[in-house]
């Protein structure tokens, strides 16, 4: 426990640095536009997601769920998702249901108790992986055009891509504010166990404190951005149907999309067949 605590408190700011985070976020958003998934038409992918994001919740057949899980695992691999996202996925699934599953096993629960838990874990994992495939395999711009095509308001889809444009800036800003705290602050000595706990609390406190300057700095920046958006016709575009048309004309469905849809369909069909046989 002591060791774990040391590691945690040492790592929270050092290894898990903002630089690393920023890099992972960017990698996730833009670093994989050469993959098969990224080249698909966003509309097809979103439709695909509606199936794999919803259906697993309502099905309780283990074979079918395993089949779906296998497929989304493959698509996630194809999308070459950044390591951090996969790590968060693992952590998320485990914290949701995985630990219950383990606990049941440890305390001698029999298969009747495990099965429903396994099912739930499978469902959560399948849906999560499908989400990861779509939201991190596609770059934010293609994603937002796809969303718009399905009738999402322009403002929403703009926000998605604008957020990605701003994230690296915000993280850099945050990193620098944090550094100010680090360089000028006086962290508690952390040789003893008690010191380490205090150090951890201190670090978390700093992260919270750093939000105040971050917000103010961002507010200051956004004044120009708001004016620039006005000048660059952002409001014009929202009310002009012509603009939507031009944006959608960039989308087109190719053989690749057909193939992807067909393979997914076949896969599901075969899984259903297997599910009814087994």
């Amino acid at each position: 426990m002591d060791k774990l605590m040391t590691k945690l408190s040492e790592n929270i700011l050092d290894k898990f640095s903002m630089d690393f985070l920023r890099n992972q976020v960017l990698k996730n958003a833009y670093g994989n536009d050469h993959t098969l998934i990224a080249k698909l038409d966003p509309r097809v992918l979103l439709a695909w997601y509606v199936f794999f994001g919803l259906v697993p919740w309502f099905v309780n057949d283990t074979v079918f769920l395993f089949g779906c899980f296998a497929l989304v695992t493959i698509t996630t691999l194809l999308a070459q998702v950044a390591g951090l996202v996969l790590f968060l996925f693992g952590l998320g699934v485990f914290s949701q249901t995985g630990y219950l599953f383990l606990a049941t096993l440890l305390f001698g629960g029999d298969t009747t108790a495990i099965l429903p838990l396994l099912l739930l874990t499978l469902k959560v994992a399948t849906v999560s992986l499908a989400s990861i495939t779509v939201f991190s395999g596609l770059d934010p711009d293609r994603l937002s055009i796809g969303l718009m095509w399905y009738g999402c308001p322009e403002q929403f889809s703009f926000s998605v891509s604008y957020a990605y444009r701003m994230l690296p800036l915000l993280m850099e800003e945050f990193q620098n504010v944090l550094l100010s705290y680090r360089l000028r602050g006086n962290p508690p000595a952390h040789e003893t166990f008690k010191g380490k706990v205090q150090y951890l609390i201190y670090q978390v406190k700093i992260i919270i404190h750093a939000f105040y300057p971050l917000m103010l700095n961002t507010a200051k920046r956004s004044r120009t951005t708001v004016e620039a958006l006005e000048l660059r016709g952002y409001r014009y575009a929202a009310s002009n149907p012509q603009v939507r048309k031009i944006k959608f004309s960039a989308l087109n469905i190719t053989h690749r999309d057909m193939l992807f849809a067909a393979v997914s369909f076949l896969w599901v069909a075969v899984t259903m067949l297997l599910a009814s046989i087994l």
Partner: protein
Amino acid sequence: MNAIEIRQLTYTYPGAERPILNGIDLDVEKGDFLAIVGNNGCGKSTLCKTLNGLIPHFISGEFGGSVCIGGQNTLETDVGQLAQTVGYVYQDFENQIVRPTVLDDASYACLNYAYQDYEQRGRQALALCGLQGKELDYVWQLSGGQTHLLALAGAVSLGPDILILDEPIAQLDPGHADAIYEVLKELNQKHGKTIVVIEHHTEYIANYCRNVLLLKDGKVEWKLPTQQALQRVEELQACNIFPPQITVAGFALQQQGRLPKTAQLPTTIEQAKDCFSQLQYRPQAEMNDKPNRQEAVAEFKEVWVGYRSVKGEPRRIFNGVNLTLYRGEKIALIGSNGAGKSTTMKLLTGLLRPAQGEVLIGGQNIKHKKAEELSRQISLVYQNPEQMFIKDSIRGDIAYAMQVRGVADWQQRTEQLLQQFQLTELAERDGRLMSGGQMRRASLAIGVALEPSILLLDEPTANLDIATRKEIMKTLNNMKQITETVMIATHDMQLVCDWAERIIVLYGGEVVADGTRDEIFGNIPLCQKVGIRPPEIFAMAQQLDAKALCYTVESFLNDFKESDHG
């Protein structure tokens, strides 16, 4: 027809007591290249915002008089239509870029105004602004200068007749600044655009602009052709505008009776060649202090550094750098954008670890030291002072580091620092709401609060107008007594010349030169290779005599004497 016609324009910001623009009459011809100069807060930016309709359509306030753009009254049209006639590039241009990739951003406005050929227009604008081949890059991969060009391309893409730029080169190194002005020149001459710049750098005004407009207290003082405008040395200086050093030198020569009073003052090196031809270089005996290098305070030993990149291989920043800093030195670290100046500072403060090699502070390897532990020995003042304000008042910010460390009589010391940096009256203000110069002074005060033995300053004079820059330079000179070792990373060669005792030049991940200002600026091939531009007066002296090394107007006046037979 005039591109811009303004009649009796008055404007008051909401809540302000006095009008910021107070009866402006102005005609700007089509195809003009106009520089607007004036004191801080004299309404330059406000005037420009009335041209693109942001005032009064987007920013309310009391508006009187009329502004006509291309014959159309701005009151009768809207921001969207005006945007297609008037392009605007902000001073904080990076906040005007809203899309992640270069081509996307350049064509964004065209798409919004529903041009079918928006992508084509974006590409053309990029080509005009010298950004071909960067179309698919992400905006955060661009250097400061390229980002500015992109902001310009975004404005150019709509094909406006008028382009307005608010302090286009304030943040750029000379190479990038030239690039911007060359682009503007081409847009002006080849494409017939009317260009309006708010500019403090009179050297650039002399070389590129056709007319100069002086604003004073919300009124047009005069609008004159550049050559005539820059002759008014005293009047400009009274408004905190500093004419080109050459003009100032010429003016001083006139005052000393060494040039006829009636003579036209030179504004560019070309003109000055004839004007100063009777001068000969006769340097005063110079004191040559041998730097005293006894105690090393920081050392780099074979340091290699690379950065993670989003795609592909990590980028190499340092290739085996060796460097020693000695106690008491005043060092300037120069090199183009991305040469590794910030990396050096991050390594010294322990924020970045070398991939290979060692960094020593006070003889100790800092590999296992935390940035917090180093902060008593070494302190870093960021380029962007806003990021140093973590409390809600300047007093709190200055006191913070001393307070949490329980420094004895920290309260007294805070007061002392506030006084030293002329911040006593501003002590309760939030740092972010102060002017550029005040923010910078506050950040310096924060930096020296712990009395570090090494003080690092990242671009302390960037983004400041010239008057404020001079003020900060004075502060830096005064600080020489209270700080031991100081290292400044900067593009500002005037600062380097006036302040530094030792200059280190970084280029391509290596230290390519290290010496006094004479050794660096006297080495012409080096300056050309690395892209160092010495101050204009230095270049002027070099034109007259290749042996001359003059860094200030005063030394130019002292070291050049009239030739006996002239």
